């Protein structure tokens, strides 16, 4: 899994590529929690380069979102495709997270 970030005016854009599985998911959660500790509150997570996600990945996303909610922050997504889109849909994540087609739309939503 590869995580890169870019500071935008309305949010931190976090691009996650590769695999978010039982082995790598804790890395994602840790980096989001670190950014929250540094004061970030708005996150746009771009998953266009993510090839695979399991419930371990969903769990780390949900844990990060819960922490953000306590801090009045927000986490939204862009670029879901293929397998990742299906797993989000099966798990009902489409109903609890805002999912945008592009980063530009996502950044406008904050």
């Amino acid at each position, binding site marked *: 899994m590869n995580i890169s970030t870019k500071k935008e005016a309305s949010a931190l854009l976090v691009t996650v590529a590769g695999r978010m599985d039982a082995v790598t998911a804790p890395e994602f959660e840790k980096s989001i929690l670190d950014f929250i500790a540094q004061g970030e509150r708005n996150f746009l997570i771009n998953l266009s380069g993510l090839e695979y996600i*399991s*419930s371990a990945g969903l*769990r780390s996303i949900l844990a990060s979102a819960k922490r953000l909610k306590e801090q009045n922050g927000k986490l939204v997504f862009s670029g879901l495709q293929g397998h990742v889109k299906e797993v989000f849909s099966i798990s009902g994540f489409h109903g609890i997270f805002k999912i945008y087609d592009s980063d530009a739309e996502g950044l406008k939503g904050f």
Partner: protein
Amino acid sequence: MTVIGHIKLPAVLENLMAITACVTTAAAAAGFSARRIGDMELVLEESVTNVFKYASPGNPGEIDITCTLGEGEFTIEIRDPGREFDITKLPDPDLGQHISERPIGGLGAYIIKRISDDVSYRRLPGLNILTLVFKREFKKQ
């Protein structure tokens, strides 16, 4: 039914990749589509990480996985010596809950049930046996 893959390793997370590789290699050799192999990979991860989680700490025992090919279907049988754990009896999560109410976890078993074409569990003395069946054609969600 022909056995086309088998692996037996200590039930620890470090062995996830080796287990996945064994099953996906067998499914690819049997001519299953990349999409169905992706389904198998996900269901397998959900199943074996449950085994790792419920294994006795310090003495995880071995997880034993056998892949068989039948008429148009691929079967993965997972045997483990952990405490009794029947995922088929777990209630489905409430997918309508909001972020604050939604419990962390509980999605793994649901994903297994939704994506596999058939899931069955039996308990033998000291052994959990989970059987997962995948048909060649993609299952409509």
